[in-house]
């Protein structure tokens, strides 16, 4: 059973639908015990890091996710889930889970005003490429021209380059896929990225971290 963590961050049903479409069983839950006992854990999310972490703490999910991480259970973060695994987020000055060293930073305020030359608007919304900088089992079968769906104003900045698996260009080159041991996370929405998104999600559902 795959646990999809409900920490009040947006529409989890779309992730559940994608997992079900791939013929894997999943449950949306905010029960720490169920999450700790799950075979795999997905924590998706849209919204703000501050309120996400607040809800996590209220429901005891922060400790549950740390326990899942140290137990070696495969875990997958999506969007805000890719930011709250860092030490902190610039968004609302939030202390996060600290599973990966570094922080989540905001796209520069000036990007929006540069649009007359570069069309750069914040949030970064739409389809963009993925530059794989380090191989990972979850990238198996992903093509070099595949694109993924992004909606975000913040992005993860890992301290250790070993934790960076993919980058994307939007005015700057930012990290869009991070990983460490049994943890993997993407800034883009796997559940809304068509076939390449479903492929990474499927890879995760069968992933055995070494």
């Amino acid at each position, binding site marked *: 059973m795959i646990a999809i963590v409900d920490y009040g961050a947006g529409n989890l049903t779309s992730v559940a639908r994608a997992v079900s479409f791939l013929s894997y069983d999943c449950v949306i839950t905010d029960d720490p015990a169920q999450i700790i006992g799950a075979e795999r854990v997905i924590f998706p999310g849209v919204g703000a890091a501050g309120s996400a972490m607040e809800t996590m703490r209220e429901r005891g999910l922060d400790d549950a996710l740390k326990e899942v991480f140290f137990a070696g259970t495969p875990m997958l973060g999506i969007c805000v889930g890719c930011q709250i695994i860092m030490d902190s987020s610039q968004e609302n000055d939030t202390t996060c889970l600290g599973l990966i060293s570094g922080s989540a930073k905001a796209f520069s305020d000036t990007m929006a005003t540069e649009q007359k030359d570069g069309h750069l608007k914040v*949030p970064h919304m739409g389809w963009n490429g993925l530059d794989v900088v380090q191989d990972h089992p979850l990238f198996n079968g992903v093509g070099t021209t595949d694109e993924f769906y992004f909606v975000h104003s913040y992005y993860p900045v890992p301290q250790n380059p070993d934790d960076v698996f993919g980058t994307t260009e939007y005015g700057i080159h930012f990290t869009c896929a991070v990983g460490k041991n049994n943890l993997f996370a993407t800034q883009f929405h796997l559940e809304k990225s068509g076939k390449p998104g479903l492929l990474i999600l499927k890879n995760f559902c069968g992933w055995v971290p070494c």
Partner: protein
Amino acid sequence: MLSKRIIPCLDVREGKTTKGIKFKNNVEIGDPVEMARFYYEAGADELVFYDITASHEKRDIMIDVVKKVAQTIFIPFSVGGGIRTLADMRAVLLAGAEKVSVNSAAVKNPDIISQGARAFGNQCVVLGMDVKHVGEKAGIPSGYEIVINGGRTFMGLDALEWAKQGQALGAGEICLNSIDADGTKDGYEMQLTRMISENVSIPVIASGGAGTPEHLADVLTKGRADAALIASMVHFGTYTIEEIKSFLSRKGIKVRKS
């Protein structure tokens, strides 16, 4: 680099897709769930459903369509039309839509934008704007006025001011529809699109008037649009999404290969 999005728009009345010209004479063209699947497979980057069911009581039919669509396609899609309350917004989002578009209700009650943005996040709230060219006049400095009720009611509201206000209230995106161009297949309203897009920092989807791939190329470059809505040109098989994207690609416009 971010790709420009190509977004088929499906007008749905009581569970069936229709297409009209200048909001009138709608003809039925198919099952929205099947069409959604078809466009998903064909490489659409996103879909827009616009519920034109006249009766508020029959809105459940649309919710049912949204649920079925959400089970079959894995790209973002938005639902608009007849969204009046936070409860309406919640219903379509819970049914599986990524975004919800507010139009007339937002003009009458701008708070719905901020309420929706607070409850579901800015990225969920699309401000749909129906706009008519009226020329510069008192209260309408941009020369473009907001209309509602399918283009029948003029609101005395300046389109540019409204776009800025919508952004300030928390809209995450603007879907900008020109009533003058809608259904004509003569091309998007370039001046309007460019004016709005250059004056807001949120993405702008151009809507109304697409007839050829050249029209999309124009609005995505000179019109500064971030995405282009299409309807007739693909609904009736005149062009495929692949043909449109190859054309744009040859013009040097970044689009997602599918």
